[in-house]
């Protein structure tokens, strides 16, 4: 053991920790663990599968086909003048990102109880890993979307991305913040009440219908549009579609609102998670 490498640090373990003491420096010391967990999830997840990482793009592709047939061809819902395949794929992809982050984070304590009950490390590592892993899968899905987009552009069926496409990282950041906030809040509750974890996936399904995934904001009656925009995910998907498919406009006010809601939920979620994580293993 080299003395230089040794972190001689004195600390105390007490019943309560400051409400605002998120111990972010400790999180930073354990940053390498995030990459190890990501590697585990990405490598181990697809070993002994025939299609491997193709599983990342197959489900959204199938959903796109199904949505195009059911909501597009049969129900004749508007796709805001854009090609239906691209319209549904963009919605499915962006919603899928948010959904996977929330659902994954909501089971933080229950899915990791084997490790959590034996070793201490900052528990926030787990939701952080989940969000980053999901970001990688979504990036791969985005490449598929880009392929389809180029095909439709070559056919002159859509005008393609505009300058607002540079907002994409911001859109992902706001979705991720909202998802961490909502997800860790749910994880704090499901750690104690297992039955609520059934409600999570059902609730997310309902939330999807309240979001402009299968319909555009423009088809919502004018007087109810503000209601649709109260849902922070709506502006994100609308902005994405405007950026890459040229439909509608960027709801700047809505986007700002989404950012504020995401920031608030992230703060509340983290504070409550911080409070609950210290005794969560007594109840799981």
């Amino acid at each position, binding site marked *: *053991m080299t003395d230089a*490498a*040794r*972190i*001689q*640090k*004195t*600390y*105390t*373990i*007490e*019943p*309560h*920790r400051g409400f605002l003491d998120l111990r972010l420096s400790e999180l930073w010391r*354990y940053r*390498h*663990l995030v990459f*190890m*967990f990501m*590697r*585990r999830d990405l*490598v*181990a997840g697809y*070993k*002994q599968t025939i299609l491997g990482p193709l599983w990342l793009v197959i489900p959204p592709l199938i959903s796109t086909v199904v949505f195009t047939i059911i909501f597009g061809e049969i129900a004749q819902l508007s796709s805001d003048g854009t090609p239906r395949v691209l319209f549904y794929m963009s919605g499915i992809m962006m919603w899928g990102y948010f959904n996977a982050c929330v659902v994954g984070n909501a089971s933080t304590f229950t899915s990791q109880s*084997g*490790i*959590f*009950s*034996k*070793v*201490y*490390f900052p528990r926030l590592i787990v939701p952080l890993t989940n969000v980053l892993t999901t970001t990688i899968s979504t990036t791969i899905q985005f490449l598929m979307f880009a392929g389809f987009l180029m095909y439709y552009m070559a056919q002159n069926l859509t005008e393609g991305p505009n300058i607002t496409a540079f907002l994409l990282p911001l859109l992902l950041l706001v979705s991720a913040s909202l998802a961490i906030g909502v997800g860790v809040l749910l994880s704090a509750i499901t750690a*104690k*009440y*297992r*039955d*609520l974890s059934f409600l999570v996936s059902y609730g997310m399904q309902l939330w999807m219908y309240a979001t402009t995934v299968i319909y555009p904001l423009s088809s919502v009656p004018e007087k109810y549009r503000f209601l649709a925009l109260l849902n922070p995910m709506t502006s994100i998907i609308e902005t994405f579609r405007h950026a890459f498919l040229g439909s509608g406009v960027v709801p700047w006010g809505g986007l700002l609102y989404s950012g504020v809601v995401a920031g608030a939920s992230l703060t509340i979620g983290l504070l409550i998670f911080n409070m609950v994580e*210290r*005794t969560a*293993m*007594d*109840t799981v």
Partner: protein
Amino acid sequence: MTLSLSVENVSKRYRLGTIGSGTASDDIKRWWSTKIMRRGDPLSPLMPAIDHGNRDGDILWAVRDVSFSVDEGAVIGIIGKNGAGKSTLLKILSQITAPTSGRIRVNGRLASLLEVGTGFNGELTGRDNIYLNGGILGMTPPEIRRRFDEIVDFAEIEEFIDTPVKRYSSGMYVRLAFSVAAHLEADIMIIDEVLAVGDIGFQKKCLGKISDSSSAGRTILFVSHRMDHITALCPRSIVMQAGSLVHDGPTEDALSYYYRLFDTVEASPLAERLDRRGRGRVRVLDVWIENQSGERVETIITGQTLVFKMRIRNMTGKTVGNLSAGIGIFSFSNMFAASLSTTEGGLGAFSVEDEMIVAFRVERMSLNQGQFYLNCSVRSATGAYEFDDLIENAKTFHIDYGDFHGIGQSGGGFVSIEHHAETEVVEAHTDKSPQANAVG
């Protein structure tokens, strides 16, 4: 000398029942019934949970007002019976759960091994798992890289390092898992029973590794039921009983204090003991050992003929059938040594009307010298095997070396095994090696 660890008045309280329901609807039911309707708790268990003497109504003090401090480089053993609070104390020290009150000062990097191989993933290779497990235990990638060869070497798995660990034998798996743990770069290590794994040879190697690290100035807290391991490693030990620290001193004194704990519990008559489990249709009133002439004995001699007897009473008023009774014999290091039961003893299921004595006749006691305790139980002979009554540590007794084989001396080891020795004349072994020929 600087302090590595100082534990000041640490307690951990669990509220029984209120954290147990686990579903929101049950909690709402309980809240409605107890707080609004002012009735009893609809979900409280009918039989009280086992009591190790640390309950206070609905409140269980898993750890109660524990204080001690550890100097840098010291090795401390923590001993106590099951349920004494050792594991909870370790969980608090490892920050897995927070204490209810009190404070702990930690000086240096603390690593805890409540289990080896935490987070191992079967799909990943040995190499990947070393990095993953090391990371979970708090090592950084450069630290792991620096000690990687040592870890692989210690685990003796060089040729399988790039094989997924799910293909490993259980021995290889445990060796790798322990090897990562043994190479942690921590100032303070907490080790819980992890040596109970692996083969004897590897266990010895691990014990050696631990004593090496203690001589290298590392502070170690060691929990084990193996008193021989505690004696070998720890000059000082603390004894826990019912959540409290009841003794702190040289290991030799701590062990004799620990052994005396068994006597004091036993001092209360069996029929009045409250720390029993089961639905209670039938209860064990007494358990004792008789020698051949029918006298009660506390000390047994190996090879003796004995009768273990249990007096049981039917508490229901009508005949209870389909019963099975048994006695488990445990060494003081908590090793399950032997079992006696109506099933194994050829009686089969029996029924009890009022009171009866169940006797287990042992023709020749084969356990060798040592201190033992026994658990006794009555339960259903079939179906769910649900306990009617189970009392742990119902009686302690001592076994002295005896002439099991009838040769005027005692056998060695844990048990005496009846055996016959013989010789057989065979043809001389012909060795064709040149050297043998030269000699021949």
